Each structure stands twice: as structure tokens, then as C-alpha cells.
């Protein structure tokens, strides 16, 4: 057979909850009421966190910020599948996952208000926000690999966008994960845009999930606006990872309802009708309907929740705004021990400041 097919590959799609909140019971994950409530609470808190951040930015009280409106099922659903001792590697649009991981929102505000000091006292195994797209993928693979070497049965999870799949580091990370069967779960938040570039122009492949096939492991596309599907796929992938089954790529098919960041004007590159279509698939609304059907959610429930969360946010913002980092922090953490050039430069700056304040 001189010309023959030698390989067949495929990609699956998973969804559990439809936009009306109907659940596919055969696939419904076994989550108790408390957990369902927590997931909902975290999604709502994430959205309120974002709303507040956008307001603060407009008022000049915060700097550039990338909201996650519409992507809450992806970030929160996946993070709820984690164990506390799993390692978490965010990009920069994972506030939902960060909150789900127990990171105090005050710290998140401190970060977005422009201070590295947000990381002082950060709960461990929650790695720093990565601004350069896709670079964190390698860290997550390395950490998972380290866990494997140290025979610790944990997994690492890493988040990145559709745009990130074009970067070399995505490729190198995926390939290392495949070769070394690292316990890594790759969450691709396909929100259909990388700033202005639509997904179809980012890559010519039909799905992003299929990219995993190039590395010899499984890729799956899930409904990213369906917290149950995201949760289930992530949970399964994490368990596979922890038990030696190697990595998985999960493409969460979702949509960024807002601007890329506060510096972005999405009307430049997309039609309002498209946004409106996606609003109908709102992940929070969908989960709300699901909870309502389960008798958990009601308007009262909602009002109480919003009130509680709003207060939590106000308090966090207040504390964050009160926070003032010390100037020496510029120098103090560059090396474990400060070398002489840094000492001199710090002294130079401190002298300048005290001259200025005296003068």
C-alpha cells in the first residue's frame, strides 16, 4: 500500500448546561448544594469585582485592567476542580479563578492599582500574573514536572487565551508536557479575540483543541459558558494528570463581552450584534437558571448575595486604596541579598527623596 492513511485523530465537544439552564443529567457532575452555591457566588463576585474595577479605572483610581465579563464559567468552573495543593498559573484575565482559589480580592485590587506588594502574604501555589502572553505555560509545565520528579501527586493548571496559542512558548510547553507526561491541565480561554484579532485569523485550524494532537495528547473543546462542562472536563483532566495519565488541553469556547482592557475600544473591530448574541449565552444567567430549577436560587437570594458581595468589594477597595508601598521595596526584592550597586542606588534615591521632602 504505497499511499495509505496511517493515522486518524479526532476532537470532542462537551456541554452539559444549555443557555436555558437545562442540564444533561447523564453528564451532570455530582456537586452538593454548598459547592453549587459557592460556584455561583464566585462567578457573581468576579463580575462585581470587574465592574468595580472598571469604575475605579474610569475614575482614575486604578490603571489598565482587563475584565473577564462573560468568561466567568471558564475561570471559576475550572478553578473549582482544583485541589488546594495543585499549582495555579494564571495569565491576566483569571480573576475568577484567583477568587475561586481563595486569593483575597483586596490583594487583586492592590495589584491592579499598581503594586507588586499584592503578593506579600499571597496564599501559596498561586503563581504571579503573567503579562507576556503564553510565557507562563512553560512555568506550569515545569512545576508539574517538578511535582512528578518529587513524587508529589498534584497537578498544575495554566490559563491562557486563544491568542496565546500562536506563541512559541505555547508550543514548547505543550511539547514538553507531552514528552514528559507532566501532570498539567492547559485551559485555553478561547474568548474569540486577541485584542482585535478574531480567532479565525489567529490560526487556520478549525479548533484550538486539536492543537493537542500535535503533541500526542488529548484536546477537548468545551462550552466555556457552561460552568458544569468546564468543571467536569477540568476535574477529569486533573484526575488523569494526578494519576500519571499526562496532560490535557481544554479549549473553553467562550466570549469576552467587554473590552480587551480599559485601553481598548472593541467597536473598532466587532459588531454589537455579535456581542448581543453572546449575551444570550451568559454563563452566570445560565447557572442562575440551573440553580433556580434546583430550588436554590430566587430573587431574594440574589438580592442578599449582591448586597453581601458589594460590601465585601467596597471594603477591599478601601483597604487597597489605603495601602502605600515603601520606596525601598523597589530594591529590596531584586536579589536575596542586595548587591552594592543596588545599595548605592537605593541610598541615592532615598537621599534625593529626603532632600526633596525637606526642601
Amino acid at each position: 500500500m504505497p499511499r495509505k492513511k496511517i493515522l486518524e485523530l479526532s476532537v470532542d465537544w462537551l456541554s452539559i448546561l444549555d443557555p436555558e439552564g437545562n442540564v444533561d443529567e447523564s453528564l451532570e457532575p455530582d456537586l452538593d448544594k454548598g459547592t453549587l452555591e459557592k460556584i455561583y457566588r464566585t462567578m457573581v463576585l468576579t463580575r462585581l469585582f470587574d465592574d468595580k474595577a472598571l469604575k475605579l479605572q474610569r475614575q482614575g483610581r486604578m490603571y489598565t485592567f482587563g475584565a473577564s465579563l462573560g468568561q466567568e464559567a471558564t475561570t471559576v468552573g475550572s478553578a473549582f476542580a482544583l485541589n488546594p495543593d495543585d499549582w495555579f498559573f494564571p495569565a491576566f484575565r483569571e480573576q475568577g479563578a484567583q477568587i475561586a482559589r481563595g486569593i483575597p480580592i483586596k490583594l487583586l485590587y492592590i495589584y491592579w492599582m499598581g503594586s507588586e506588594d499584592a503578593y506579600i502574604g499571597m496564599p501559596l501555589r498561586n503563581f504571579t500574573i503573567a503579562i507576556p502572553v503564553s510565557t507562563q505555560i512553560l512555568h506550569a509545565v515545569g512545576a508539574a514536572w517538578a511535582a512528578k520528579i518529587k513524587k508529589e501527586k498534584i497537578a498544575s493548571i495554566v490559563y491562557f487565551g486563544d491568542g496565546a496559542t500562536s506563541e512559541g512558548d505555547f508550543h514548547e510547553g505543550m511539547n514538553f508536557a507531552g514528552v514528559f507526561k507532566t501532570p498539567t491541565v492547559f485551559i485555553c480561554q478561547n474568548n474569540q479575540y486577541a485584542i482585535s484579532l478574531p480567532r479565525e485569523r489567529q490560526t487556520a485550524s478549525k479548533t484550538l483543541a486539536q492543537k493537542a494532537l500535535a503533541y500526542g495528547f488529548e484536546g477537548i473543546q468545551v462550552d466555556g459558558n457552561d460552568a458544569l462542562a468546564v468543571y467536569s472536563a477540568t476535574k477529569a483532566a486533573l484526575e488523569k494528570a494526578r494519576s500519571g495519565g499526562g496532560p490535557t488541553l481544554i479549549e473553553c469556547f467562550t466570549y469576552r463581552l467587554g473590552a480587551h482592557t480599559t485601553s481598548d475600544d472593541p467597536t473598532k473591530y466587532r459588531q454589537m450584534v455579535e456581542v448581543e448574541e453572546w449575551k444570550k449565552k451568559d454563563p452566570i444567567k445560565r447557572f442562575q437558571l440551573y440553580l433556580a430549577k434546583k430550588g436554590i436560587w430566587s430573587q431574594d437570594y440574589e438580592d442578599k448575595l449582591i448586597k453581601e458581595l458589594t460590601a465585601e468589594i467596597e471594603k477591599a477597595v478601601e483597604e487597597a486604596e489605603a495601602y502605600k508601598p515603601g520606596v525601598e521595596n523597589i530594591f529590596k526584592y531584586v536579589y536575596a541579598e542586595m548587591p552594592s550597586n543596588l545599595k548605592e542606588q537605593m541610598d541615592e534615591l532615598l537621599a534625593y527623596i529626603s532632600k526633596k521632602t525637606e526642601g
Partner: protein
Amino acid sequence: MRVAKLNMVQAINLALHEEMERDPDVIVMGEDVGVDGGVFRVTEGLLNKFGSERVIDTPLAESGIVGTAIGMAVYGLKPVAEIQFEGFSYMTIDQLAAHASRIRNRSRGTYHCPMVIRSPYGGGVRALEHHSEAVATFYIHIPGMKVVIPSSPYDAKGLLISAIRDPDPVFFFEPKRLYRAFREEVPEGEYTVPLGEGKKLTEGDDVTLISWGAMARVCLEALKLVKDVSVELIDLCTLSPLDDKIITESVRKTGRAVIVHEEPRTLGLGAEIIARINEKAFLYLEAPVKRVTGYDVPVPLPKLEDYYLPDAERVADAIKEVATF
């Protein structure tokens, strides 16, 4: 020739329009440069005018952008590739150091690589991590590269046109803090500001003050604080190849020099300038050359950024210190 008051974004945009008009081989590429017009709106209007084959929204991959631009340049196009922020230019160093900068030499002139990489540069706009860095050293140190940083709208247009027409690869950094900081008269139509030549922003006899980009403007402010010292302010404009002549002549006259840059101090261009002064004007020096620079630390996030960046007072203090040494 019509003249308009333009800010730097507009001046660069105008240069791109005119060069694309003039030469069909000039193309613009990068992340969000097309439909979006660039995150700073520098490439606005180009897509509409020149179409998507010449104004190309690329996938998100910096090495890919520069590497494919190299192939285009070798083929005969003149790509002007944008790297969205300087903090992502690290990903281009390999293609620049291993290829763009060497193709002429490696092929003994059989091929060459006429391309421009444009990128915003430096701090002062309260941005995210990696969005406030001054990274010129990496590119100045690569033999075969040219590095250019304008400090005004007029120069930005004239230097960019020169860079586009230059037969060798040029990294063109745009001090983002100056993008919309002020307007000045910028003629429409062709004019160039030559690469490789610094210019005097002020003439003076006591101290030579050397800077570029946004820091050149800070230096201008500083001059207001040191009215009693006669300062010769040199805006280098091109950082590689370095204009030794303007530096040497000035320092031979003044015997004193201050260098101001945003880069971390260690191996910022200030070091090389001191070395050149040492080599070419040693006997004229009456005081150690003083560096006012960023510190040897990562650029702090916005809350502490102002402490990092040289400001007019730090510069003025340095001038006084050197003048009275």
C-alpha cells in the same frame, strides 16, 4: 509644503502613510495594526488606504513577526513590523541577533535585510508590567543593527522615513510617554532626519547633557532649574551607530558631561558613552561623567514608577554637581 501641528502618534502615522504611498514595497505588519489601527492608534487609517495585503494583522507571535519580516525583506519588500510593547521585544532578539543583523555580512552582500521594527518604549504612562521598559541596550549591542529613538514629532517623522529607506535593519523605538505629550509643526511630504547623527537642543559651554527619547524632554525641563549653568543638550536620536563626533566635540568644549537615560544603569548606553568620552576626550575632562538613569531593578509597577524614572530635579542636581566638581 503644508505644515500641521501634530503629536508624535500623528507624525509617525503620517510618515507611514507617505512612505507606503511612495513605495509599494513598504508594508506594515504586527499585532492589531490593521483593523484596530494599533493599540496606540499609530497605524490608524493604513488598512483602509492600503488594504490587507500591505497592512497585516498578524497572529500573536513576536518571533514570528520579525522572522517572517526578515524573509519578506530578503525577498524585496520593506516591512515595518510593530512589536506592540517593548517588553515583548525580548522574543525578537534571537531573530534579530542571529539573522536580521547578519544577513548582509553572512551572505557577503548577496542578501540584505531592509526592515524596521517599531515599538513603543519606556515608562511614564502608568502601565502594566513589561509596558514601561527601556530596552535599547539589547539592540545596540547587536552588530549590524541600527537603533533609533526620536524625541519629538518632527524628528519622529523624519527619522522613521530614514529608517524605512535604510538598507539595513533598524529598531525604531517610540517613547510612548511622548506619543501625545505635545504637538509641533510637522511638514507634510518628504523630509528626512538622517540616521547616525545627534542634534543639539541647546548650545552651551559648561556642561554637556546627553540624552534621547522622553528623557531628552526631561532634560529640557531640567534646564529651567539650572539657569546659571550653560548646558549643551544633545539629543542622540540614533543610539546605534553612535554619533561619537557630536559627543566628543561637545565634551572637549565643556569638559563635563551628564548622561540621562531610562535604562537600568548597568550597561545602559550611558556606559558606552562614558567609554567613548574616555577614549576620545579624556584629557579634556574636568569632572567624572555623571549618569542619571533608571536603577538596576525591574521597572516598578505604577505606584512606585515615578521614583524609578529620572526627573527634571534629579537631572538638575546632577548638572549642578558636575558643574561645580
